[in-house]
């Protein structure tokens, strides 16, 4: 069980090795990638700001919650921080269990809770030069850069 924050591209094959377990018949992976559009605007790149101490403690808590609810044997999650280009993997969640139902449900839980609860903020840089913190309704838009 691990949760980490990465400044460099995520190495899926080494994560995959950490998930190997002969008692597991199922593994589900979720990859969140930088998409070229959001709400109708063309995105150029993304920037993630992470407050690491609480991202990790809360990330491990979410994994523990999933283990309490489903028969999860392995779980890993990694989130990038800093600037990411289009198509780059921003977040990976992996869950392995004996049967597939638990793996699907736990993977979905991990990514949903991680997106809702971790102190990780996303700033979209658009093709037109603007940049905005996503989902901060009243914070105003920070322009440029």
């Amino acid at each position: 069980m691990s949760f980490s924050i990465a400044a460099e591209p995520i190495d899926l094959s080494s994560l995959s090795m950490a998930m190997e377990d002969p008692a597991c018949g199922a593994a589900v992976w979720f990859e969140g990638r930088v998409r070229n559009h959001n709400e109708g605007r063309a995105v150029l790149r993304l920037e993630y700001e992470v407050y690491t101490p609480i991202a990790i403690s809360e990330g491990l808590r979410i994994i523990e919650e999933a283990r309490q609810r489903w028969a999860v044997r392995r779980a890993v999650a990694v989130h990038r921080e800093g600037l990411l280009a289009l198509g780059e993997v921003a977040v990976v969640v992996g869950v392995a269990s004996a049967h597939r139902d638990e793996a699907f449900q736990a993977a979905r839980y991990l990514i949903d809770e991680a997106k809702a609860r971790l102190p990780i903020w996303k700033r979209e840089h658009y093709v037109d030069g603007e940049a905005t913190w996503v989902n901060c309704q009243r914070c105003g838009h920070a322009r440029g850069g």
Partner: protein
Amino acid sequence: MKTVCIRYFAAFRDAAGVSEETVNSNATTLSALFRERAGAHTALHEETAAKVALNDVLADWSDTFENGDEVLFFPPVAGG
């Protein structure tokens, strides 16, 4: 009067214009402290989904704080 170190993240940092500051406050709860800072930084507004942490542990807005604490103000996260 308590002295606390406050750190602002992401959109809150842009709104406050500083990433951290040490302030003296008469506020008792974390939400009162935030409102005090919103009075000092006019672009800083309350957000329903904002969170607060005290000394690297998530806290409730109704929690109190002590002299010398470090307070972190987290704007809403990206979610979806």
